[in-house]
């Protein structure tokens, strides 16, 4: 997990001026779950949103005050800040289908 080492720092996976997808991943330290979540997220984004996304990782151990803003309770939590409306997906994102539904990348109920 290379980018997570610079926790809470923005990771511009692709330098687009204003990516349509603004995602935030909240974690609490480098646990197995957070590593898995980041890897899953990255894979899904590369597959479905290539060039259109921006992931920010926030480590709550280091920046606990940020948990309030997005009402973070469980970790890992993925917050889709853009496009609106805000969506939250909690867990290690291991179920790709659920993540795609959660991100509105796939209409609910379809394959």
């Amino acid at each position, binding site marked *: 997990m290379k980018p997570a080492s610079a926790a809470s720092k923005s990771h511009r996976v692709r330098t687009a001026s204003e990516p349509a997808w603004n995602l935030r991943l909240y974690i609490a330290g480098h646990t197995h779950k957070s590593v898995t979540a980041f890897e899953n997220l990255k894979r899904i984004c590369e597959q479905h949103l290539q060039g259109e996304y921006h992931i920010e990782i926030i480590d*709550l151990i280091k920046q606990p005050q940020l948990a309030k803003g997005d009402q973070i309770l469980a*970790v890992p939590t993925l917050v889709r800040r853009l496009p609106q409306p805000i969506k939250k997906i*909690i867990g290690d994102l291991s179920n790709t289908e659920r993540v795609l539904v959660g991100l509105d990348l796939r209409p609910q109920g379809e394959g």
Partner: protein
Amino acid sequence: MRGSRTSPSRKTFVATAVDKCPTGIVGFDQISQGGLPRGRPALVCGGAGCGKTLFAMEFVVRGATRFKEPGAYVSFEENAAELTANARSLGFDLAGLMRRRMLAMDFVHIERSEIEETGSYDLDGLFVRLQYAMRSVNAKRVVLDTLEALFSGLSDTAVLRAELRRLFRWLKEQGVTALITAEKGEGSLTRYGIEEYVSDCVILLDHRLREQLSTRRLRVVKYRGSGHGTNEYPFIIDQQGISVLPITSVGLDHAATAARVSSGIRRLDDMLGGRGFFRGSSIMVSGTAGTGKTTLGCTFVNAACARGERCLYFAFEESPSQIVRNMRSVGVHLQRWVDRGVLKFHAARPTLYGLETHLSVMHRQIEEYRPAVVVVDPVTTVLTQGALNDVRSMLLRLMDFMKSRQITAYLISLSRNSEPIEHSDADISSLIDTWILVRDLESGGERNRGLYVLKSRGMAHSNQIREFVLGPRGIELLDVYLGPGGMLTGSARVMQESRDRAQAGASERQFARVQAQIAGKRTRLEAQVASLQHKIRIQDQLIDQLVLERRADELAGQVARRELAISRGVEVVPGKVRNRGDAS
């Protein structure tokens, strides 16, 4: 400070001694013998609107203001603005506490519809936020207000339960005294069974309705390693927060004083051994409607205020201004005492709330005002609010409480016309030290008032009925008429008295007449006696005359006989003649 550090390591010794963290909630610390278990989580549960949030809020606020223990308040239901507004209505300045870094608040909002769950997760986010809030103020007290909201926000209950267990363990490690609120479930203490994680102290709040009147009750369901009151205690929520009616004062160990207080009516004092009531005793005045019970009470209050004693008057039937006005008409001026702050009225409709609430309110008022005399007018309307047994035990608590404070309790009891006065109040009579009865005495087409002392513990008291008259100068007690015609009061008494006077006058004249008659008779008799004595004297004179005449005759006879003998030559016995001659 010390407690919060040491308690986690003391966990194994809890059975012997539990360090307590006072809540500052009136009455609760007495029931729980010191407060919540320090350094451990406690649970407060109950239905909607039972006061859980307020209980938790007061715990944190009092901790900050009174015990210098900062607190962290994590709410799952209301945000900081809402909580601040709610708390302000109870006089808690949350914003000020936050500014002074005595309080940290966090609002945890979970909206299930916004959340998708996929894969494994934990609640480290919550832990982080909790820890952040706690550290920001160095919290000693933590509240998690309706932690169970997590269950409705997250679907993986297995994870939740594991995380909750971890949370409580973590809270203990932090050494904070935590209070967790939870909604009451069907047939269980909490809806999601949180009580199984919080095993040290569980408090149940209850808000129930009976006959449209609500009563709040509190019960300590369990308290590991500590004694606690096991009853249900009524509590109230008012402008000062929660007040639990404690019963630690219940007992018969209050000191009895021999000091006396005047009833305000000299003749009533006379009836009570000449010196009035005992200070700190309980006095009940019973009577049917319109017998002057309130006036008696107000006269007592008036006298107490004049002595400079503070009086608290619970009016359940009349408004204070009405009482003041009515009393003015009988020459008892109460307004001046109100103005001087020695008399306080507390008026409430009996149906405003249930019995327990009434008594809690009274309790709180007494605590605050610290009076020497408390009048409850009338106590009977409050009594009808509950079942007889409840009433009795509640009243007992109140009386004991007042006795322990040396407060003279003056209870006014309205009796129903249909039943004998002595019976209607019998269920509480054993709590009463001095019992005065005011009753109607109907006769001669009018109604009058009679007053007597039914009982008065510890003093010689009169057994006589006094007529009780209300005039512009207050209460007067008069002797009733006791005569051949029985006991009379009112106009009958007045008439009988004038009749008596008339009768007495008549007999006086009769006496004079008879006296004169007898004197006349005596005079006549004396005259008779005089005339008889005159007659006797006349008779005596007659007898004397007769004797003289007879003697003269005898002499004359002898002379004649001697002359005859001489003339006949017969020897005359010389002695005889000589004697006769000597005698004459």
